[in-house]
């Protein structure tokens, strides 16, 4: 029972963190029509910047939680304005190729700046160690991760349903030309959305830094996980992304505990099943 509960919590933690990353990917796709292959790289940059600020710079964890995602968001604005902007209106393969090029660049730049080894960040004081509040021992930091993810989820929901900026973004996602016609500055919306997605990926990277080994391969793994999430949940659907992220989190948590030899291929089996039975994803709309 305890091991079941621990796996459940673990799956929730992995799933919620994945949601924060995959939902950024999904929002960018919704407005720009671009799948950002470099999204995992932005997550990785968040983690590495935390390492530099905290483990190298001696800064406390909390300012890093603000600074690192901000820096990555600024980088995203530059990338969108200087690079991505060129291929809007072209065939979708061009934007895929371009973000794939960004993936290659970010991956190797990280290797060049921080090396190929594994880096470590320690959790901030107060969030170290384990708690037995639920009757068994579980890391305090994991609860913090879940809290951050839930806060992001709630903030996003409020932003998209209750604020003017959120509604403008949704309008631009539904019909870009019409939004332009009624006076919405669509290029600005596009830049803002790309920065928002990058900010969320980097925030997830900062939060993940103290509990995951920071290495140059972490971006690749997270982008594949995010793809599996959007395939399971369906592109263009927030509830779908949450469902996909939680399903994948549970697959990792329970698979790792009860079927360790299959853990590697279980996510793909899950994805293949969804593709066979419900190709548009659990909650996605049909795209053609």
């Amino acid at each position, binding site marked *: 029972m305890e091991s079941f509960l621990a796996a459940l919590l673990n799956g929730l933690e992995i799933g919620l963190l994945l949601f924060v990353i995959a939902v950024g990917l999904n929002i960018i796709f919704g407005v720009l029509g671009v799948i950002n292959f470099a999204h995992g790289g932005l997550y990785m940059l968040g983690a590495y910047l935390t390492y530099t600020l905290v483990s190298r710079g001696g800064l406390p964890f909390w300012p890093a939680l603000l600074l690192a995602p901000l820096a990555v968001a600024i980088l995203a604005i530059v990338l969108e304005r200087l690079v991505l902007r060129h291929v809007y209106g072209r065939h979708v393969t061009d934007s895929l190729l371009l973000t794939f090029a960004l993936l*290659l660049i970010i991956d190797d730049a990280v290797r060049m700046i921080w090396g190929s080894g594994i880096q470590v960040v320690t959790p901030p004081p107060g969030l170290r160690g384990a708690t037995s509040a639920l009757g068994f021992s579980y890391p305090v930091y994991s609860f913090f991760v879940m809290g951050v993810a839930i806060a992001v989820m709630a903030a996003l929901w409020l932003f998209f349903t209750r604020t003017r900026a959120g509604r403008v973004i949704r309008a631009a996602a539904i019909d870009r030309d019409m939004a332009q016609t009624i006076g919405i500055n669509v290029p600005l919306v596009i830049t803002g959305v790309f920065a928002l997605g990058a900010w969320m990926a980097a925030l997830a990277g900062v939060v993940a830094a103290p509990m995951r080994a920071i290495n140059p391969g972490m971006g690749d793994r997270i982008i594949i996980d995010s793809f599996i999430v959007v395939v399971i949940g369906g592109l263009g659907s927030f509830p779908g992304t949450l469902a996909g992220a939680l399903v994948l989190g549970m697959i990792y948590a329970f698979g790792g505990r009860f079927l360790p030899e299959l853990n590697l291929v279980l996510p793909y089996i899950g994805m293949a099943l969804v*593709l066979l039975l419900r190709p548009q994803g659990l909650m996605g709309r049909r795209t053609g």
Partner: protein
Amino acid sequence: MRNAIIALILLALFAALFWLPSYAPYFYIFVATEILLMGLFAASFNLIFGYTGMLSFGHAAFFGIGGYTAALLLLHFQLPLFWVLLLSMLAGMLLAAVIGFFCVRLDEVYFAMLTLAFGMMTYAVVHQWRSLTNGSDGVAGFALREFGLGLDLQLADPAVYYQMVLVIVVLASLALYLITRSPFGLLLRAISENAERVAFCGINVRRYRLLSFIIAGTFAGLAGGLFAPFNRVANPDMVHWTESAQPVLMTILGGAGYFLGPYFGAAVFVLLETWITTYTEQWMLFLGVILAIMVIFFRRGILGTILDWLLRRQ
């Protein structure tokens, strides 16, 4: 007339390449072998990308499984190379059939994501299945014996191996070329231009995409099967996503709109790689920058841009 000139040029090129070992230093024989194999790999990729209009980021899976099939068969069964290569193609074909079955079900965006994901899955399996694949060290220590079919070739000699690769790559490329010129190939091109319209004509688009994917996987398997004996090892690098990036880049470099584009791109790529890696280890960084520049400004590739320029001058 024009076709005759092109045929003559290609024939002269073939002759010059075939007797390369008699006038070029040893080093260039290795470079030329690599260019040929990468060219075939990239051309097989371009059947999906340039001709069918689907961007695959997981093509190394088939190259890799071809390489591992060859290495394992040579190591454990000492089969003649001819049969090894046939089985490498079969391995590439089967894996492409399985992966393709899932990847062609949705549109291009999903296709790109799914091919990358399944490619990474193949890498993870190859990397973890130590009892079969020897993990990150890869499969090495196999010997090349005979080619089979009664041919007496000294395959251990790099010059002979190069000439054999040249002949096989030319034959395989001819087969690929005929496929692209056949009614089947024309249909693929129609799908890449407007899949919806083709579907309205009563064509099962998904099936044609899958067939194109399987054929591409088969030829990538052949390229991998030839690459592992050349490289003396089949290791997980052959299956990694950065390996999948190579045919993408070669095709974009050369030009996806021309049959010979990927071969030309492979030549530029391998020569650039040989040159840049003597200065820096950050080769992928250069690749990314070059890819971005090509996509933004020279979408038709080097060959395409040159040909466009020449044709406009005429």
